[in-house]
């Protein structure tokens, strides 16, 4: 089947009566799962799988991916209104989303987030479609050496995120790298820092760590400080004001199309490389938005560009992650691993066969992502008003409910009671870090990328010896990394000089 033929057939199937209703139900379901803290796309898809046994492939794929594609949109709303990432990937959104809410601009942030998600997803899906003819070559291009250097480049973004206090950021990032080492070492088969616990053998699970660092920590703070999430601002916005803010947010997002385009490219590229994942993508995009902004100093205090950048990258990741999943059956993210098994249930084989004989199935996925995110954007806009009203509730009412939901989310990933303990522990760590002004984002980036950096460094040295860095592609990437680091170090030193002059 040719690509044009596949495109048309995929589109017609996606909007047909046999498929579209499932897409709609899936998208709305995903949105709701996303709003609930801790329940991620991973979870939404796992819940859908049992239904697939009796479904046609097209409908099943639309149902599953529809549910998955809107989760980040719902999660963004939770990040903005409850300072709690609805899913792991939304942790970056709350850096500027929740300050905007405190400034009374929550609905505007929500409008911008929903729209950026939709635009980012469309970009990622379109990129996947354009890459189809060369997809296998693109995926094969990234060997261990290349992934190592790219992961390292991503790691250097810590320097941008924590520019204001580079020492503290480095401490946090190194702590993250250390945490990534917990578990079985694949090369030597040694267990590291597991204390003989079977639960730690596979390393720390990402979701309970993120929930602890951001959600549980927030609950602790609310509990300690009392009052409500909105703080002093007592009267919630009127319905009319909320609506007008949503539209203004949407317009703001469209106005910053160039930023969305750049952050979507970052997201798509990070999705393409297996093992980097979507949580760091949003932080890297956030770092990029901050780096290139004219108003760097307002980041973290409610800059709409921070929300737009991270949310655009969030949903652009999926297009990229689908690429390696479809081309080689190598899942680009944990949810893609579930998609793979769902395709198996539906009797679809990924890999070369899908690209040559079932290209229409790939296009059903592409259109499902785009249409699903559009549904998510419209549906999400209706959720803004009720959610913003909830934030006015007293902390003593809100905290117990949210804590229960968050712990359920931590448990659900692996059905593990141990993970609830992990969430609680990282809640304490996250609270202390927030109070003492250490960057939780830096810790998370170190933690997530630590795996990729270490594993691929091992593989690259085993494959091409200690001088693998001097091969052309890794060398080019390494030079970019060094240049990037040098520029940032220089600007930090210059900035420090300015501050000293001001002081003097």
């Amino acid at each position, binding site marked *: 089947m040719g690509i044009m033929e596949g495109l048309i057939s995929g589109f017609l199937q996606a909007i047909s009566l046999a498929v579209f209703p499932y897409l709609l139900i899936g998208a709305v379901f995903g949105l709701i799962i996303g709003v609930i803290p801790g329940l991620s796309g991973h979870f939404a898809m796992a819940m859908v799988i049992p239904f697939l046994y009796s479904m046609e492939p097209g409908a099943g794929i639309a149902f599953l991916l529809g549910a998955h594609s809107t989760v980040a949109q719902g999660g963004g709303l939770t990040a903005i209104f409850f300072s709690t990432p609805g899913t792991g990937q939304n942790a970056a959104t709350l850096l500027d989303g929740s300050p905007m809410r405190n400034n009374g601009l929550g609905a505007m942030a929500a409008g911008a987030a929903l729209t950026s998600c939709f635009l980012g997803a469309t970009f990622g899906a379109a990129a996947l479609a354009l890459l189809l003819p060369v997809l296998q070559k693109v995926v094969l291009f990234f060997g261990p050496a290349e992934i190592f250097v790219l992961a390292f480049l991503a790691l250097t973004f810590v320097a941008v995120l924590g520019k204001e206090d580079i020492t503290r950021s480095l401490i946090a990032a190194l702590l993250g790298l250390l945490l990534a080492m917990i578990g*079985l070492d694949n*090369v030597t*088969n040694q267990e590291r820092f597991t204390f003989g616990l*079977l639960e730690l053998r596979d390393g720390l699970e990402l979701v309970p760590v993120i929930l602890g660092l951001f959600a549980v920590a927030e609950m602790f703070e609310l509990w300690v400080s009392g009052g409500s999430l909105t703080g002093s601002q007592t009267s919630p916005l009127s319905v009319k004001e909320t609506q007008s803010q949503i539209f203004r947010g949407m317009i703001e997002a469209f106005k910053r199309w160039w930023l969305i385009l750049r952050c979507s490219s970052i997201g798509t590229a990070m999705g393409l490389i297996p093992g980097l994942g979507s949580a760091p993508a949003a932080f890297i995009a956030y770092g990029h938005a901050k780096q290139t902004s004219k108003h760097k100093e307002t980041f973290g205090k409610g800059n709409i560009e921070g929300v737009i950048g991270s949310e655009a990258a969030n949903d652009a990741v999926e297009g990229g992650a689908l690429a390696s999943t479809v081309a080689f059956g*190598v899942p680009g993210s944990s949810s893609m691993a579930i998609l793979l098994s769902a395709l198996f249930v539906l009797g679809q084989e*990924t890999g070369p066969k899908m690209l040559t004989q079932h290209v229409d199935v790939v296009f059903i996925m592409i259109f499902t992502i785009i249409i699903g995110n559009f549904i998510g954007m419209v549906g999400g806009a209706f959720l803004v008003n009720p959610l913003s009203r909830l934030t006015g509730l007293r902390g003593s009412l809100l905290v117990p409910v949210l804590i229960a939901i968050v712990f359920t989310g931590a448990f659900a990933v*692996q059905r593990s009671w141990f993970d609830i303990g992990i969430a609680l522990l990282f809640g304490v760590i996250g609270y202390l870090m927030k109070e003492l002004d250490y960057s939780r984002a830096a810790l998370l980036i170190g933690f997530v990328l630590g795996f990729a950096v270490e594993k691929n460094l*091992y*593989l690259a040295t*085993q494959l091409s010896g200690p001088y693998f860095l001097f091969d052309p592609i890794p060398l080019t990437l390494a030079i970019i990394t060094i240049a990037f680091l040098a520029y940032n170090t220089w600007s930090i030193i210059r900035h420090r000089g300015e501050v000293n002059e001001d002081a003097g």
Partner: protein
Amino acid sequence: MRVGVRTLSIAALLSIGACSEPAGYPNKDITIVIPFNSGGGFDTYVRALAPGLERHLPNAINVLPKNLPGAGGRRGASEIFRSKPDGYTIGIFNMPGVLIPQLQNIPTSYELSQVTWLGTLGYDPYIYAVRGDSPLKSIEDVSELQRSVTYGATGPGSTSYVATNIVNERLGIPYEIITGYTGSSGYLLGLVRGDFDAALLSQSVARSYLESGDIRALAIFGSESSDPDVADADDLGAPELGQLRVVRMMGAPPDLPEDIRIMLEEALLASMQDQEFRVWLETTGNDVHPAGAAETEAAVSEMTQFYDQFKQLLD
């Protein structure tokens, strides 16, 4: 007196509870523990089988799959082993994945020789694969190479790593294993990219890449070869290597009452013959090799003996 009344009322409640349940096993839902996340072969097979089990067991109860991923299947195996032997918790074991740690004397909270085996769903043979355009055309070519052959695998102690060790030691091929890839699809990608010479892949992972020509099979272990260009264990003069395969076995905690075991075994075998399940196999290109409890038990002890003789290669 008061205590007496309370005891009586509790007794009354209990008897009402007992009366409302249908007589005999099973009278409540049965849980099937799957030691992996939703996804992958183990999960899909169990989920496709569950409706059949419900049909073939007396009384209207549900059969509920429960995913307990972690530690390469050991967490799930422990959970099954430690459950009450009442027939309401059964599970699927990945062999030899959960067997190898036991032979390495890693402390495990299960003992496979005590498990009440119910039956086997089937197995997945190992394919000895090279890249599609590799100059190596047969295992003979490989053994005539004047250097160490390089292989990719996940990590030491993993089933693929152990299988690679056993094949090369048995066939006397000098070799080197590059470890650290994530999952079988990870080193499959490495093989296609040309990171190393060859790899042992399970057939289900390799299938579509063999068809597309991205990789080529030189040998198959754990099943007879139907292709003259692909050698099997017998062709290589090492019939015992036929033991190298991933097997999906169903089991229950030790000391399961015999009548319940028979009921479960029969339901399992019957549901694998169901029209609905057969259609699912057909459309998804999967297959089963059903075996009963006695055969499964024999297979476990045979497999244990096989891996035991290669004990020094396990880690």
